[in-house]
C-alpha cells in the first residue's frame, strides 16, 4: 500500500518535473516512469524497507533541534546541570541512532542501485545481441558504449538514491514546518515567507546549470568522437600528410569550444552558492529582527530562537535539493529515454516462437523467388537458386552483384522481402537461430578476430571444443606451420582488430574457426582472397577431403579457387546470368568464358607446356 502511494507520488513528481520543462519528448514521461518502476518492482521488499528507514531517520532528524531547544531552555537557562546532562545524553543517543539508520539506508539504497545497474546493463547488452545485422550496421559503436556505460549510470542514481532523497527531503520539509508551527506561528510564517523567492531562484539556477552542463557534454562528445576517428583511422591519416593541418585545426577549434562551454558552465556553478547564501542570509535577517524582538518581548524563549535557526536550515535545504534535483532528473529521463527507445527496437529478423531445433540431414539449399533490398536499394528481384546435397557450387560475379547478400540470406542474417529460403525443405524461419547457425559455417569476406589468443579465436567456432579438437582441425587444414610461425604459437594474443597478423593469416584463422563447427553446410565468401596461390592450393587439397559430405558454396574471383566446384553460377546485378560446369560455361563463350580469358588468356602455350608440373 505504502509502496503504491509512494510510487504514484514519484510518478507525479517525475511528471511534474518534465512538464515544468515543457521539453518535447518522443516518449511520454509517464511511460518512462512506469517503465523505470517496473525495474524496481522485483526489488519491492527492499524499496519498502528503505522507505520505512527513511521515515524513521526523518523523525530522528526533525527531533534533534527540538532537543537542543529543551537543553537550552530547561537546562542552561535554568541552571539545571542534571537536565543538561539528560538532554546531552539524548542528543548522543540520537546521533547513534542516526548513525545506525544512515548506515542501513546507505547499504540498502546502494545495493538496490547496484542491482538495478547490473540488471539494466545485462538487459541492454542482451538486447543488443538479439538485434539483427541490419540494425547494428547503422549503430555507432560509441553510442552503444555510452548507452551501457553512461546512460544507465545516470538512470540508476536517480531511480534509487534519487527517489529516496526526494522522499526524505519532502518529508523533512513538512516535518520541520510542523515543528516550527508548534513553536510559534508568526515566526514560522516569517521563515516560510522567503520560500517563493527561493523556489524561483533555485529552479532558475537548476535550469541554467542543466543547459550549461548539456552544452559541455555535447562538446565533449564531439571532441571524443573526433579523437576516436583519428585514432581508429590513424593508419590512413598518417598516409595523407595534407590531412594533418586540417585535423589539427579542427581539433583545436573543438577543444577551444569545449573550453568555452566549460567556462560558461563554471560561471553558472559559481553563481549557485552565493545566490542561495544570499537568500538564506535574508532568512537569518528575518529571524534575527523578528525573532530577536520576540525574545526581547518575552514572547518566545531564546531556545526557541536557536531551534528556529536549526529548523530554518532543515526547511530550506530540501527546497534547494528538490529543485536542483529536477535537473538531474531531466538528465536521467533523457538517458532513460535513450535506453528505453533502444530496448523498444525490435529486430526484423526474429526467431519465431514455433522455431524448432531441426537437424540438417542432407544439406539441400533452395532460394525461391527472392526479392531483397537494403533500404530501398534493390539487390534481388526474383532470384531462384538451388544447391543439391553434397554439391559444391561456386558463385562468381562482379562486386556489388549480391554474392555476399546471398550468403547472408542463407544464414538468415537478413530476411528477404518476399520469397523463401529453404534448407532441407524447411524454411529457415522454422529453425531456431542456434540450430541453423551451428550447423552451417561461413568464412566471411573480412575476417574478424577478437582480442584473445589464437586458440580462443578458433574455439569461438565451437565453444565446447577442447584444445585437442582445435589443434586437430588446424593440422587437418595444414595450418600448423602458420601457428608455429607466431611468436607464442596458440597463445599469441591477437591485438584489437587483428593488426599483428597479416590479412592472409587472419583469413586462415577464420577458416579454421569455421571448420571447427564441423558444419553440414559450408560457405566461403572470398575466404581465400588474400592468400597467395600456393598457400591456397595447399588449403584446397585439405578442403577436397574436408568437403566430402557437406554442401558447399564458394564465392570467389580467382578461378583457381573456383576449381573445386561441381557447378558454377555467374551472378550479375542480382540475377543469375549463367550456370553450369566449367566446360559448359567455357563453350558457351559468355561472361564466364570472358573471365577465364581475362585471367588465363595471355599465355595458353605456357599452360600446355607446364600442365604436367604437379601442384606441389
Amino acid at each position, binding site marked *: 500500500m505504502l509502496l503504491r502511494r509512494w510510487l504514484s507520488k514519484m510518478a507525479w513528481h517525475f511528471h511534474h518535473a518534465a512538464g515544468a520543462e515543457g521539453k518535447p519528448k518522443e516518449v511520454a514521461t509517464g511511460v518512462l516512469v512506469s517503465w523505470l518502476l517496473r525495474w524496481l518492482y522485483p526489488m519491492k521488499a527492499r524499496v519498502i524497507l528503505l522507505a520505512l528507514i527513511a521515515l524513521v531517520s526523518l523523525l530522528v532528524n526533525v527531533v*534533534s533541534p527540538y532537543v537542543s531547544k529543551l537543553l537550552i531552555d530547561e537546562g542552561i537557562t535554568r541552571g539545571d546541570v542534571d537536565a543538561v546532562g539528560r538532554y546531552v545524553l539524548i542528543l548522543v543517543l540520537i546521533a547513534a541512532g542516526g548513525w545506525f539508520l544512515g548506515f542501513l539506508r546507505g*547499504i540498502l539504497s*546502494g545495493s538496490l542501485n547496484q542491482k538495478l545497474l547490473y540488471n539494466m546493463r545485462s538487459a541492454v547488452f542482451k538486447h543488443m545481441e538479439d538485434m539483427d*545485422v541490419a540494425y547494428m550496421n547503422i549503430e555507432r559503436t560509441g553510442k552503444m558504449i555510452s548507452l551501457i556505460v553512461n546512460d544507465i549510470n545516470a538512470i540508476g542514481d536517480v531511480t534509487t538514491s534519487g527517489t529516496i532523497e526526494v522522499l526524505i527531503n519532502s518529508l523533512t520539509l513538512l516535518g520541520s514546518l510542523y515543528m516550527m508551527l508548534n513553536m510559534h506561528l508568526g515566526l514560522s510564517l516569517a521563515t516560510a515567507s522567503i520560500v517563493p523567492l527561493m523556489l524561483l531562484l533555485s529552479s532558475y539556477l537548476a535550469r541554467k546549470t542543466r543547459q550549461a552542463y548539456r552544452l559541455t557534454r555535447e562538446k565533449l562528445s564531439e571532441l571524443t568522437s573526433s579523437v576516436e576517428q583519428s585514432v581508429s583511422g590513424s593508419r590512413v591519416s598518417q598516409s595523407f600528410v595534407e590531412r594533418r593541418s586540417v585535423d589539427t585545426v579542427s581539433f583545436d577549434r573543438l577543444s577551444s569550444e569545449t573550453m568555452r562551454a566549460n567556462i560558461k558552465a563554471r560561471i553558472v556553478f559559481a553563481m549557485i552558492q552565493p545566490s542561495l547564501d544570499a537568500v538564506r542570509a535574508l532568512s537569518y535577517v528575518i529571524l534575527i529582527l523578528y525573532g530577536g524582538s520576540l*525574545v526581547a518581548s518575552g514572547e518566545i524563549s531564546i531556545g526557541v530562537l536557536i531551534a528556529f535557526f536549526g529548523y530554518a536550515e532543515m526547511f530550506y535545504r530540501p527546497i534547494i535539493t528538490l529543485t536542483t534535483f529536477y535537473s538531474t532528473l531531466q538528465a536521467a529521463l533523457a538517458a532513460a529515454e535513450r535506453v528505453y527507445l533502444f530496448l523498444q527496437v525490435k529486430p526484423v529478423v526474429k526467431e519465431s516462437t514455433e522455431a524448432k531445433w531441426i537437424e540438417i540431414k542432407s544439406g539441400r539449399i533452395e532460394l525461391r523467388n527472392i526479392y531483397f533490398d537494403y533500404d530501398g536499394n534493390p539487390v534481388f528481384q526474383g532470384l531462384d537458386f538451388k544447391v543439391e546435397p553434397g554439391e559444391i557450387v561456386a558463385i562468381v*560475379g562482379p562486386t556489388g552483384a549480391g554474392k555476399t547478400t546471398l550468403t547472408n540470406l542463407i544464414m538468415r542474417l537478413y530476411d528477404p522481402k518476399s520469397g523463401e529460403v529453404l534448407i532441407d525443405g524447411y524454411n529457415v524461419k522454422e529453425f531456431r537461430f542456434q540450430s541453423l547457425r551451428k550447423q552451417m559455417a561461413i568464412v566471411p569476406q573480412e575476417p574478424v578476430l577478437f582480442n584473445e589468443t589464437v586458440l580462443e579465436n578458433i574455439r569461438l567456432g565451437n565453444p565446447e571444443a577442447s584444445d585437442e579438437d582445435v589443434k586437430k582441425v588446424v593440422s587437418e587444414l595444414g595450418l600448423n606451420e*602458420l601457428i608455429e610461425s607466431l611468436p607464442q604459437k596458440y597463445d599469441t594474443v591477437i591485438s584489437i582488430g587483428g593488426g599483428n597478423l597479416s590479412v592472409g593469416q587472419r583469413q586462415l584463422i577464420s577458416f579454421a574457426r569455421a571448420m571447427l563447427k564441423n558444419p553440414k553446410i559450408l560457405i566461403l565468401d572470398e575466404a581465400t582472397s588474400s592468400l597467395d596461390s600456393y598457400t591456397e592450393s595447399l588449403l584446397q587439397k585439405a578442403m577436397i577431403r574436408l568437403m566430402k559430405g557437406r554442401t558447399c558454396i564458394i564465392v570467389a574471383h580467382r578461378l583457381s579457387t573456383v576449381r573445386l566446384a561441381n557447378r558454377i553460377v555467374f551472378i550479375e546485378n542480382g540475377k543469375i546470368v549463367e550456370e553450369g560446369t566449367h566446360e559448359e560455361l567455357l563453350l558457351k563463350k559468355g561472361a564466364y568464358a570472358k573471365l577465364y580469358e581475362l585471367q588465363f588468356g595471355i599465355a595458353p602455350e*605456357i599452360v600446355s607446356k607446364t600442365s604436367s608440373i604437379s601442384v606441389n
Partner: protein
Amino acid sequence: MPEPILVGTKTQTIKQINSFLFAVQMPSGSKHLFRRIMGYVARERKLLCGVLILIIIGTFLNIMGPVIAGRVVDIAVLKSSSELWVYATAIILLTLSSGAVSFVREYLSGLMSQKVVYRIRVSIYKHLQDLSYSFYDKIDAGQIISRVSRDTENIGGMLGFAIPNLIASLSTLVTVAGILLATNLRLALIALTATPFILLVSLFFNRFVRPLFEKNWIEISGMSTIIQEGVSGFKVLKALGVENEMFKKFDRKNVEIYNIGMRITFLSAITWPSLGLIVGVGSAVLYWYGGIQVIAGGITLGQLVTFTMYLGMLVWPIMSIGFVLSRYAEAMISARRIFEVLDTEPEVKEKPNAIDLGKVKGEVRFENVTFGYEDKTVLKGLSFEVKPGEKVAIVGATGSGKSTIVKLIPRFYDPQEGRILIDGVDIRDVKISSLRRNIGIVHQDVFLFPTSIRENIAYGKPNATLEEIERVAKIARIHDYIISLPNGYDTVVGERGVTLSGGQRQRIAIARALLVNPSILILDDSTSSVDSETEREIYESLKELVKDKTVFIITQRLSTLKLAERIIVVENGRVIEDGTHEELVRKGGAYARLYLTQYAAQEVVK
C-alpha cells in the same frame, strides 16, 4: 545473477587499519608529475595569484558569521532588541561580499584550469599525430579517448576545484582553530577533539575507496572494449551463433563492476553516517561542557552558540582534505597516463636537420633491410632497386612480409638495419611529411570513415573540387555505382564502411589514394575483392595516370601480375627472384611454381 559478494569487509579492514591511515597512497613519482602539470599552470600564474588572494579574503569573511550569530543570541538573552538591526545589516553585507568573492574565485579558478586542460588536450592530439604505427599496433582507441577526455578533465578538476579547495580548507582550519583557542582554551580543545576523528574517517574512506574507483574504471574500460568488439564483430558472432560467448564475457565484467559497486556502497554507507555521528556527539559534548560553563557564568550562551557553529564549520574543510587528497591522487594517475602518451617517443623520428624531399622521380632502393616487429623478424637483409616509373609487383607467401615491405617506404616503421633510398636519398634524412606527400598507399585492410563518400575520397585533399573527386572515382571504376545511390556522393557509409560491398570499399580507397597525385603509388592487394573484369578496367584507366609514376602492386591474381613490368619474389625475408613475368616463368623457380598453381588448378577441372 550471483549473490552480492562483499569482498574486503570488516576483518580485512581492521587488519589494515593501522598501516594505511596517514599514508594516502600516491602514484609513484607524483611530485615529478605535479611539477610537470605546474609547468602548464605557470603560464596562468596571474590567475593563480588572484585565486589565492580571494581564498584568503573569503576565509576571513566566512569566520565572521558565527561571531555575529553569537552576538545576536547574547543580545536576545539580554532581551534588548535595539542593536539587532546593526547585526542584520552586517549579515547582509557579509553575505554579499563573501558571495562576490566566491563567485570571482570560482570563475578565475575555472578559467585557469580550463585553459590548462585545453593546452594539454591540444598537445596530446598533436603528439598522437606524430606517433608511429608501432604505437597504434599496441593501443586501443578507447584508451586514447579516455586520456584525452577523462584524464584531462581529472586534471582540470584538480586544478580548478581540488587545489583551491584544499587551500581554502587549510586556511579556514587554521583561522578557526586559532580563534577558538584564543577565545576559550578548554572549550576550544573540546571542540577540536572532533577534528582528528573526522580526518581519520575521511582518510579511511579515501584509502579504501580510491583504489576501488580506479579498479572500477579499469573494469568499465574493459567492458567498453567488449561492447566495441560486440558491435564490430556483430555479424561474425551472429553467423557463428556464439552471441552467448560474448554475453558471458560481458557478464563477467558486469559482475565484477557490481561487486566493486557493492564495496563502494559499503564504505560510503559506513563513512557518511560516521561523520554525522562524530559531529553529533561532538556538539553534544560541547553543549554539555559549555552548558555547565554557561551555568557557572564562565561564558555566555552566545559564545557557546558560536563555538558549536564553528564546530560545524570545521567538518567540511577537514572532510574535504580527504577528498582533495583523493582527487589529487586520481589526477596524478591521470597525469601519469597522459604523460605516458606524451613521453612516448615516436619510433619513427625526424632528424633535426631533415631536408625537404621535394617532388621525387620515384627511384626506390632497399639496401640490406632487416626489419622485425617486436617479437618477430620479418625481413632479413632484403635488397632491391626500382627505377623511376617502373611498375613492380611483390609476390610471396601469406605472411612473408609483402605488406611490411611497402609500409617501410613511407616510413611507417623504420628498419632495424640497412637503409631505404628514394631518388638516392636515405628516407631517414628527409622531412617525414615531404616523404609521405610523394607516396599514395592503399592499405590491405581498407578503412573508411563513417562520413560521406565524398569526404572519404577527399580525405587526403580536403579542398578538392567535385570534378577532381569524380575524375579519380571514374578511374577507380566506382563513379557509376556512387551516382546510382539516391544520395550520390553524399551517401554516408556505415562505420568502417560496412554498408558497402568489399570491392566497393576497396575502390573508394583507391580513388582516395589517387586524388593526392603521388609519385609513388602502392596498391597492397587493393583489388582482391574486385572482379577480374572491373580490375582490368581499373588498371587500363590507371595506365595513363601512372605512366611516369613508380607503382608497387601486391596481388595474388595472375591477371594482375602480368600487368607488372617486373616481379619481385619474397621468401624468408629476402628477395629470392627478380625479373619479368616471362623470365621468371621460364626460370621454373618459386614464381613459376606459384604461377602455375593457378594454372594447374584449371587443369584439375579439365
